[in-house]
Structure formats: C-alpha cells, structure tokens
C-alpha cells in the first residue's frame, strides 16, 4: 500500500513539474531559447503573488488573476528586448544572457527579500488539508488542485496553439521564420507573444510551488529549473503533453526513491532522467522526425 501511495503522490507532483516545464518547452520549441532564468522567474512570480496578496488582500487562490498578466507582460518585454538582442547574435548567446538574468534575479531577490523562505497561503485549509483513502493513502487537496490546473493549462495551450490565430503564427514562425516574414508576420512580435504565454505558465508554476512548499531566492535554480529540465527531457523536447508525462515519471521516480530511502528522493529522479537521456534522448514522446 505504501508503494501505491508513493506512485499516487508521484503522479500528482508530476502536475506541478509539468507546470514548470511547459513554459520552458514552449520557449525552446519556438525560439530555440533555453531560458536558464526560467526557475528564477517562477520565484519572482511567487514573490509578486505574496506582495499582491499582502497589499490588495485578494484571496490567495485569486492572486493569479493579477500575477499572470504581470508575468505575461514581463515575458513579452524581456523577449522583445534582452532575449531578442541575444538571439540576433546567436542562439548560444541566449544561454549566457538568460544565465546572467538568472544570477541578477537571484541576487536581487536576496538583496530585497533576504534569504528567508516564504510560503503562500500557508494557513489555508486547502493548502494543509488532505483526504484519505483507506489507512495508507492520503491525498492533499492542493496537489490535486495543482494537477488539475496543470492539465487545464496544457489543454488550454493545445487549444491556443492549434486553433487561434497567434497559435498558428507561433507554429509557422517555429517552422520557418523567413517564410513567415514573407507572409507579412513580424516574427519578433510572434516570439514576444510566445514568451508572454510561457511566462504566464511560469507565473502559475511559481504560485503553485509557493503554496506547495516554500520559496526562497535560490529555489528557482536549485529546484524549479532542474525539475523543469528533467521533465522536458524525459517527456521529449517540444512536446506539450510530454511535459506532463515527463513530470509524472520524474515525480514517481522521486517518490519511489524516497520510499526506499528518504534521502534518495532527488537522486532517484535524476537517475531516471539520465537513463532516459541515454536510452531515449529524444524523450518518451518524440515530436516527429526532425527539428
């Protein structure tokens, strides 16, 4: 029964990891940008949520209504300025630039918010509550909610990419930037939209993590970025639903590792990550032949 519980917990945490991963995957899939500041931006979103809740007294769960647009706007602006400038030089330059961004954000957060960790809505019944199945399995409401949000986000992304005008343009630009320009599309603007969408998901990931665990200035690179990477690679680069599968595989591996020995939780996740990388480098769900 303990094993079943581990797997259930792992699957549910996979939703949280997918929330981290889908934005990373989207930015890589469209712009070929590996955003090393991805995790830090999630932490920024979490801190913004804490601030928004403190100042406006909106219910914790509704803070995303304010934080998501702020992050989306930040995504558009960052893409059109810093990231695009780097991209104009080379894709590799974006690695350096987003790494720099990550360092700046982390130290900025340390400067202004100290190294103390903070949670979001730590005293909410939703955050602390759980229901039990039998005697061994306990399911946290929050994890269930996060999983549902992750599925909703992926469904939303899929709908956006496949049905909307901008989704179509994003796919077209990802296929062939130049041909898209010949069709009258300003790919820089389209990149900005894609970054805005990616940052919106980052915002949700940051808030979710702040409720699930604690945020401190280093959480972004220590935890969120690494888990996002692992989920993306396990699931398959550029595959939307792959991020959920990757997140679930990572989550289950961690929980099973923890079941064997509590200190093996992270190790088990990374071992699975390495195994996938060696045996199936294209990920569990590979996206067609090339690209």
């Amino acid at each position: 029964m303990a094993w079943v519980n581990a797997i259930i917990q792992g699957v549910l945490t996979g939703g949280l990891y997918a929330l981290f991963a889908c934005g990373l995957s989207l930015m890589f899939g469209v712009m070929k940008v590996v955003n090393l500041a991805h995790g830090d931006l999630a932490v920024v979103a979490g801190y913004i949520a804490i601030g928004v809740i403190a100042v406006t007294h909106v219910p914790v769960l509704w803070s995303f209504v304010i934080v998501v647009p702020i992050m989306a706007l930040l995504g558009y602006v960052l893409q059109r300025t810093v990231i695009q400038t780097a991209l104009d030089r080379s894709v590799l330059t974006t690695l350096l630039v987003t790494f720099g961004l990550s360092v700046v954000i982390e130290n900025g957060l340390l400067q202004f918010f100290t190294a103390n960790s903070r949670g979001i809505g730590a005293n909410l019944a939703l955050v602390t509550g759980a229901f039990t199945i039998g005697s061994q399995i306990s399911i946290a409401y929050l994890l269930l909610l996060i999983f549902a949000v992750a599925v909703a986000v992926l469904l939303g992304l899929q709908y956006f990419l496949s049905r909307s005008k901008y989704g179509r343009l994003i796919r077209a630009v990802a296929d062939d930037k130049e041909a898209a320009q010949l069709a009258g599309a300003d790919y820089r603007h389209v990149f900005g939209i894609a970054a805005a969408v990616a940052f919106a998901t980052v915002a949700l990931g940051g808030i979710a993590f702040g409720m699930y665990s604690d945020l401190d200035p280093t959480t972004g690179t220590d935890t969120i970025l690494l888990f996002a990477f692992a989920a993306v690679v396990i699931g398959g680069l550029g595959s939307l639903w792959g991020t959920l599968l990757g997140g679930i595989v990572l989550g289950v591996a961690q929980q099973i590792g923890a079941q064997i020995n509590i200190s093996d939780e992270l190790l088990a996740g990374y071992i699975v990550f390495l195994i996938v990388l060696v045996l199936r480098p294209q990920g569990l769900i590979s996206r067609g032949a090339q690209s």
Partner: protein
Amino acid sequence: MTASGMTGNGTVDGRPDSGTPLLDVRDLVVHHGQLMALDEISLRVFPGEVYAIIGANGAGKSTLLRTIAGLHHPTSGSILYDGKDVTELRPERRATQGIVMVPEGRRLFGSLSLEENLKVGATYARRGPWTIERVYEMFGWMRERRNQPTAQLSGGEQQAVAIGRALVANPRVLMLDELSLGLAPVVVQRIYGMLPQILGTGLTVLLVEQDVSQALRVASHIQCLLEGRTTLEGKPADVTADQVEAAYFGLAGATAASRPGEESEG
C-alpha cells in the same frame, strides 16, 4: 512621383510608359560576405507585366528577388515600390504593402496543414480579390485535402500551396522564385498555365526562372543576368535564341544585343 518615374521612356521597347513603374530597382549592389552577388542591377517592372529574370546558376537571380523582398540588405542602390523608397523596409512590411514572394523551394510550414498554411498567408492580407475560397476554386483538389499536412503533398501540389499562400495576401507584385525547381516538366507546364488566371486579377509578376524556354513563353519582358550583371534585356519577341544563349553563358558578342544600364537613371 519621382523624376525618373515621370521620364520613364518605356516606349523604347514598346512597354507601357504610363506613369510610375510599380517596381523600380536602381543600381542594386548586394554582397554575400566578401562576394559580390549583384553588381549595379537595375530594373523596372510596370503594372500588369510578367517580368522574367533568367540566368544560369549563381547569376544572382534569387539574390535579386530576395533583396527586393527584404531578406538581403543591399550594399548600395535603392528599391522603389509604387514611387516610394522601400529599401530600408523590413520584409514583413513589404509583404503587407503588396510585395509578396513565393520563395525558392516552396518553404511551406511543415507542421501546419494545407489550410493553415493558407490562413497564415491571409493573416496580414491586404484587401483584394484573393481569398482562401478563391484559391480552392482555382486548385480544385485542395479543398478535399485541406486538413492534410503539407509534407504529404507532391512537389507540384506543394508549389501550388505556396502560390496560394502568397496569393491570399493579395499582392500587387507577386515574385516567383524558381517555380520549376525539382518539378516534372508536365507539372511545371500546369503551374505556369495558371498564370493568366492570376494575372487576370490585376497582379504584376516578377519571376526568376532557370528554365529559359519556359520564361520566354510566359514573360512580357525578360532580363538575363550573368555573374551579377545584366547581359540582355528586352521583349521575348525581340531577342533571338542566339542572343539569349550568348547572354546566358556569357559568350563574346552578347553585348551587341544587350542594353545594360539602360534602365538606370540618367
């Protein structure tokens, strides 16, 4: 609008001389790194023309079209479109103003369906006669297969989609880069057979073609490039096969028939 536009003495070879050329390229010099790809190329395309650029591989034909589309930046020279200087305009702005190119190799969006490719083409379209519906009327087979990925289409079908994608933007100047490349002669015939229908909607066509006989058949005006320079130009009816051959391969004596520089100012 401009001085040269007004003085356009196109009557020299019986071309329309009414007002401004739609496209007026002046002394275009383009480098690929150290290499000079175009050496002071000038050309004028008047409304309603089918203007064909011919020449061997590496003559600079595609570079010329890509520069007019805005994908290459010229070292010097200028491009006037409808009397306005567009030399500094970004490619997407040129497209939305009516200079639309069907690129060499078709360049369809591989992860999009046939119809989605057309929809992208129509996203920033100018107002005009062309709609996706009209493209479906012209290419009857498309409607049934509109949800297929374009990778499943044959080369000729892909080329038709690429043309459709450009048409739905409602261009004033449609630039066609090597339509015949990699296609069977029958297919090439069929695609060029569509030109009259396209021209009937008031378009002007500027095309690049390696297949000289095909170009001579459809064009109202031809210009032959060799190593980035103009070696011959005129109406297809006015040039002899020998002249074309000489201009194409750069044989001695080609200059007798050529009028390089005639189009430039002065």
